[in-house]
C-alpha cells in the first residue's frame, strides 16, 4: 500500500470515527448495594458497550468526583438525583408491584413513632448524599435533633438495629424488602411521607440526542436481560 492510498483510506474512515465518538456516553452509576463495584462495572459495561460506565461504591467518592467531572448521564437513587444540578430525569427505576409509599421507618424491637415524634432519636440510613448533606436533609425532613448514622451498604443496616446502635432505620421499599428477606427478626414498619423515586436515570441538560439514545438503549438492554434485579434490586426502568 502506498502513502496515497493510505491517506485515502484514512480520510474515508474519518466520518465513521467521528460518528462512533459522538454516541459514546459517559455514565456515572451510584446505587448503594451489597454488590462489589467491579462486578457492577463489568456487568453493565458488557451489557452496554456503547456507554462508558463508572461505578461508585461510596457517596463521598461520587459527590467529590462530581465537583470536577461532568458525565453525560447519571443513574442513581431518587434521593441522590434530586440533589444533582443540571441533569434531567429520563427514566425511573420501579418495582413491578409498587407500594403506596416509597419510604419507611423500621425497627426490630418497637413500632416506629409518627414522623413528628422522632425528636432525639437515632436513625440509621444508607449514605446517599454524603455526611454533611445527608445530615442536613434528614434533619430537615424528619426532626432537627435526630442523631444520624449512615452506612455504605444495605447489609450494614441490620447490625445497626441488632446491636442497638440506632433506634430506627429509614429505608426505601427495595431496602425494606431486602431486610425482610435477609433477617429473621420481625420488622415493624411505619411509612414516611417522602415521595421519592427508588431510582432515576437522567442526562446532562446539554446532552445531545445521541447521548440520550445511548442511555435509553442501555436501560432497555438492562430491562431485557433482568440485570436490574442483580445490580439495582429493581424490576425495570420506565421512561418518564
Amino acid at each position, binding site marked *: 500500500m502506498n502513502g496515497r492510498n493510505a491517506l485515502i483510506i484514512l480520510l474515508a474512515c474519518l466520518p465513521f470515527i467521528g460518528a462512533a465518538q459522538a454516541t459514546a456516553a459517559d455514565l456515572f452509576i451510584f446505587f448503594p448495594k*451489597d*454488590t*462489589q463495584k467491579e*462486578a*457492577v462495572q463489568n*456487568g453493565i459495561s458488557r451489557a452496554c458497550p456503547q456507554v462508558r460506565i463508572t461505578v461508585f461504591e461510596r457517596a*463521598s467518592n461520587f459527590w467529590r468526583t462530581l465537583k470536577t467531572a461532568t458525565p453525560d448521564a447519571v443513574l442513581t437513587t431518587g434521593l441522590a438525583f434530586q440533589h444533582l444540578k443540571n441533569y434531567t430525569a429520563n427514566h425511573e427505576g420501579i418495582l413491578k408491584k409498587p407500594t403506596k409509599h416509597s419510604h419507611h421507618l423500621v425497627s*426490630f424491637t418497637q413500632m416506629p413513632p409518627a414522623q413528628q415524634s422522632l425528636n432525639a432519636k437515632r436513625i440509621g440510613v444508607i449514605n446517599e448524599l454524603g*455526611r*454533611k448533606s445527608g445530615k442536613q436533609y434528614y434533619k430537615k425532613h424528619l426532626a432537627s435533633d435526630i*442523631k444520624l*448514622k449512615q*452506612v*455504605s*451498604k444495605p*447489609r*450494614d443496616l*441490620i*447490625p*445497626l438495629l*441488632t*446491636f442497638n*446502635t440506632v433506634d430506627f432505620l429509614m429505608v426505601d421499599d427495595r431496602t425494606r424488602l431486602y431486610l425482610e428477606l*435477609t*433477617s*429473621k*427478626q420481625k420488622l415493624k414498619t411505619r411509612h414516611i411521607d417522602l415521595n421519592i423515586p427508588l431510582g432515576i436515570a437522567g442526562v446532562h441538560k446539554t446532552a445531545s440526542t445521541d447521548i440520550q439514545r445511548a442511555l435509553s438503549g442501555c436501560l432497555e438492554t438492562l430491562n431485557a436481560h433482568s440485570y436490574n434485579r*442483580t445490580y439495582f434490586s429493581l424490576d425495570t426502568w420506565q421512561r418518564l
Partner: protein
Amino acid sequence: MAKAIAAKHMDDTISSQTYSLVTGLTLVRKLLSALYLTLNVTLQRFSHFCHALLTITFLIGALTTLPTKKVFAQDLVLTLRPDSAQFHQVSQGIEESLAGDIEMVDMVVGPGKDNRLIFDWITLNRPNAIILMDNYGVNTYLAYQRQHPARRYPPSIIVSTLAADRMIPLLANSSAILYEVPAVTSLVGLRKMMVNRPIQKVGTIYRSDFKQTFLTQRKFASLEQIEFLGIEVPNDASSRALKKALKALKKSETDAIWIMNDPALLTKSLITRAWIPQLKKHKQPVVVGIKTLINSQLALGDYATYPDHYELGIQVGDKLFDLQDNRWQLENNAPLQPISISKEVNIWRLNRKGIRFQQSLLNEFERIITE
C-alpha cells in the same frame, strides 16, 4: 600693591571659601535637624501605634487563655498506628469522616519509633481524643499514661485491635470498637448464601476466659433464631483437649461451625494437630474471622468475615462526633460492635463438601477462592 591686592584676593578667596563652607555646613545642619525632628515625630507616633497594638494583642491573648480557649481553636484528634496498609485505611476512613471539621494528626508507632516525640506532642497539643490502633498503639499510649500519672486524659478509642475490650480497663478514660465480627453478622450472611441448607444450629469452641464472649455471641445469635452451641476448653488447651471438643461438636450435628478469633486457640501447633485433622471429618461450612484461614492450602475455613477497615474508620469518625457533641466526655465505655464487614469465600472447598450456594451472591464478596 600687587602683593596687597593678591593678599586681599587671597583673603577674599579664603573668606569666600570659608563662607561657602560655613554656609554649606549650616545648611547640612539645618537639614539634619529637620530630618531629626521629622523622624522624632514619626517615631513618637509610631511608638504610640506600637503601644496600642501591643495592648490589643495582650488583650486578645488574655481572652484566648481563658477556659473557653477551644471555642476559637479547632478540635484536634491524634491517631497512633503501626505502618501498614490496613491501619492506613482506617486512618483514611477517619479523615474522610471528619472532613476537616475536626483536625486529625496521624502518627506511626512501632519498633524503632521514638516515643518521646509522641509523648511531647501529646503534652504540648492536648488533643481532644486519641485513637489507638493495634497493640503498638495501645502500648504506646499506656506508656504515656504511666509516665504522666497525675494528668487528666482525653478519651481514647481502641480500634483495629484483637481483644480490644480486654484493653479498656488498662487505660484511663478509654473505649473500643471491637475488631471481631460478631458471629450473628457472619451467620446471617452465610445463611443468605446457602441453598437448601438452613443455618439454625451453629457450634463453636471457646476457652474458659472467653465464656462471656461466647454468651454474648449466643444472645445475639438467638435474635436471628440461630441456636449457638459452645464447647468449653481449658485456658491452656492442648491439641488433645481441642480434638476432644471438636469430636463432641461433630456429634452435635450443627449446621455450621464458627471459629472464635482467639489467638491462643489458633496457634500453628493447634491448627496442624487438631483443627485441620478434625475438620476434615466435618461437612458443614466453617466460618472464620481471619481471611488467611480460608486459603486452600490451610484446609480450615470456608467463609471469612472481617471488619471493613475503611468503614471502621468512618465508624470511629461517627464516635468522635458523638464525643464532640458531648464536650469530649465519654458517657460509657462499653465496647461497640463493628458495623461494616468484608467477606471472602472458598467455593472450591464448599463444592468439595457438596455445599450448594447462591451463585448470584458471589458478586458480594471481596475475594473468591476457586482452587
